[in-house]
């Protein structure tokens, strides 16, 4: 069997484990249906297998480790959408995929189908270490220092069914990047890891702890600056042990590690971790170069080669076709290898549902991945898809194919690239709908030229304080709230998840949905009127504060 590009190749041990796990869950489902298990008994078992009961049906959340899949796996998502769901899936802000119309009795069959392509839904729920997320440009970006996916895979193996960490005080999220440009929101994770090359050629890690969004948004703090590769697992083990021992279990709202780090202070937390490390058998946790190399060997490296005139071909096409040129400007990123480019496929068509893809689109993306990017796809935490290794002279053909399936929106990083949780249309926890207001804003600012003129401006929308839409980190954030049974939206400004992470601040009173859309439009108009040459929205906000935007947003209220 050929080794896939971009993700780890399972071995027989992995497959035997999955088979046993599915057999176990099949029996649990059967016992639930015949009444041997009550719902209270069954709920934690189904959640451990990624199965939620939402508003209209069961929802299955499937793990996409470090956001990377191959074309066979994408085709399996299309198959699940077509045969078990309503012909579409939803890519999430944690690089996973969710299916919203699942039947309990069919779930074992779905898991069996998934296992044929080495996928599962384990640890996509529950108070355990969740899917490890990573940089969507990993292994491809020109600005990258270290490809973080090998270490992400090591963390996946370390955290999967970890006997100590199956019942943590609360869920636990880890992100890892190997670029100086934080594309994983490292400071908004329970543990955020930035990898870089060390002096000895092995990787070293800067580690942040105690970040998170949700009810209490907090920016993670640096706990260690330079953890050597061989100490990575021991260090993470110690960090999570301290949390497991001292995190609060009496109050769900105070149970995340961020609350513990705030309560102890970062220095005391670090001392506790160092004390834990001092009494651990470090040899047992030592990550040797041989181990890392063995994992590395189960990743295929793409054989990149391009004609010498590839860049010139691309430039010619851009000159000839302004629409293509606009797309290239917003939806690509420089590749490390000459003649290549990273293409970002937007799942945010004007007026569409952010992150949704139909089975036909998923199948087409799989075909295009085979044709243009070594069969590899990445799911981004901003709910888009990346083809990481496209030859520059073939980019126009790729774009033309994407247009045929309505996947060529030129809006990455722009106002139309809206991040939104499923909200009250699906989610049992939500207070307000996220998708309709995202659709209205997407349609309002749908014109590609207008978006390009506005420039970098990210809108994030959450339907409740749990913040799955990362509204705290949006340049403009919208939080849906329930006011006497009606949906209102609170606007925040100035959040950012990248380098210099910050939490958005509330602009003023919450507004009804349509008033919110109008307020955002006025706010953007004000920005266009007062910005200096070259200033982004955040630059103008930093220079002038929120007063002019507040005045614009609330001028008719």
């Amino acid at each position, binding site marked *: 069997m050929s080794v896939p590009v971009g993700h780890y190749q399972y071995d027989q041990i992995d497959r035997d484990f999955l088979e046993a796990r599915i057999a176990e869950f099949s029996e649990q489902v059967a016992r639930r249906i015949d009444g041997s298990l009550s719902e209270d008994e069954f709920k934690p078992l189904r959640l451990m297998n990624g199965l939620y009961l939402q*508003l209209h049906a*069961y929802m299955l959340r499937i793990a996409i480790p470090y956001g990377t899949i191959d074309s066979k796996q994408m085709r399996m998502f299309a198959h699940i959408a077509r045969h078990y769901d309503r012909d579409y899936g939803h890519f999430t802000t944690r690089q996973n995929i969710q299916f919203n119309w699942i039947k*309990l009795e069919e779930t074992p069959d779905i898991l069996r189908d998934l296992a044929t392509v080495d996928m599962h839904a384990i640890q996509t729920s529950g108070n355990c270490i969740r899917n490890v997320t990573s940089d969507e440009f990993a292994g491809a970006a020109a600005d990258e220092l270290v490809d973080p996916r090998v270490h992400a895979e090591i963390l996946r193996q370390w955290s999967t069914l970890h006997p100590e960490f199956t019942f943590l005080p609360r869920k636990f999220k880890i992100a890892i990047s190997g670029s100086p440009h934080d594309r994983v929101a490292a400071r908004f994770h329970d543990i955020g890891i930035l990898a870089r090359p060390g002096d000895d050629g092995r990787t070293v890690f800067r580690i942040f702890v105690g970040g998170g969004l949700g009810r209490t948004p907090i920016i993670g703090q640096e706990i260690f600056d330079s953890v050597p590769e061989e100490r990575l697992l021991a260090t993470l083990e110690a960090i999570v042990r301290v949390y497991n021992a001292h995190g609060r279990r009496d109050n769900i709202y105070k149970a995340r590690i961020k609350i513990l780090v705030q309560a102890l202070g970062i220095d005391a937390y670090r001392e506790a971790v160092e004390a834990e490390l001092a009494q651990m058998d470090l040899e047992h946790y030592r990550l040797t170069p041989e181990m890392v190399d063995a994992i590395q060997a189960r990743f295929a490296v793409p054989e990149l080669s391009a004609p010498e005139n590839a860049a010139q071909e691309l430039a010619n096409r851009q000159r000839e076709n302004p629409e293509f040129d606009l797309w290239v400007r917003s939806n690509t990123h420089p590749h490390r290898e000459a003649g290549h480019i990273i293409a970002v496929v937007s799942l945010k068509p004007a007026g569409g549902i952010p992150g949704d893809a139909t089975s036909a689109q998923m199948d087409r993306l799989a075909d295009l991945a085979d044709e243009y990017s070594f069969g590899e796809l990445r799911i981004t935490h901003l709910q888009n898809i990346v083809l990481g290794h496209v030859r520059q002279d073939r980019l126009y053909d790729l774009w033309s194919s994407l247009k045929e399936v309505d996947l060529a929106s030129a809006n990455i990083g722009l106002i139309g690239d809206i991040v939104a949780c499923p909200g*009250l249309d699906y989610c049992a926890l939500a207070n307000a709908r996220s*998708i309709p207001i995202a659709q209205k804003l997407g349609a309002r600012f749908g014109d590609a030229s207008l978006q390009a003129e506005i420039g970098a401006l990210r809108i994030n929308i959450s339907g409740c304080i749990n913040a799955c839409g990362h509204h705290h980190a949006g340049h403009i954030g919208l939080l849906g709230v329930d006011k006497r049974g009606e949906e209102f939206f609170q606007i925040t400004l100035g959040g950012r998840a990248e380098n210099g992470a910050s939490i958005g601040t509330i602009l003023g009173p919450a507004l009804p949905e349509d008033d919110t859309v109008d307020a955002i439009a006025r706010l953007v108009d004000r920005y266009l009127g007062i910005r200096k040459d070259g200033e982004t929205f955040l630059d103008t906000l930093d220079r002038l504060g929120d007063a002019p935007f507040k005045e614009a947003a609330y001028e008719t209220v």
Partner: protein
Amino acid sequence: MKRPVRVGAGEKLVLTANRLLDGTIVWRDRLGRWRPVIGAAEKLDAERVGDVLELAQIRAQEDGVVGVYEVAVRDVDPPEPVTVRERIRAHGPTVHPEFAVETVQ
């Protein structure tokens, strides 16, 4: 313990749940059957709902439903839930008109 649903003037209560096998939203009719349309739901006074709810919860496994609870509705035909959440449950997600749920049979 869940707080009782407040019932305002011109409002009644209906019982709802999800079907165990496929999660479909169902509403309890006057014969105790679980039906997929809210128009079939029996409208109950606040004084009576406690007993009916308790019985429905006891019978949930036998009836093939999960998560039985009461919902405040306007006393019209078909009943219209008071909250946005329950209106979305009764009518289907607002973002896919093709998945709209009938409210009467």
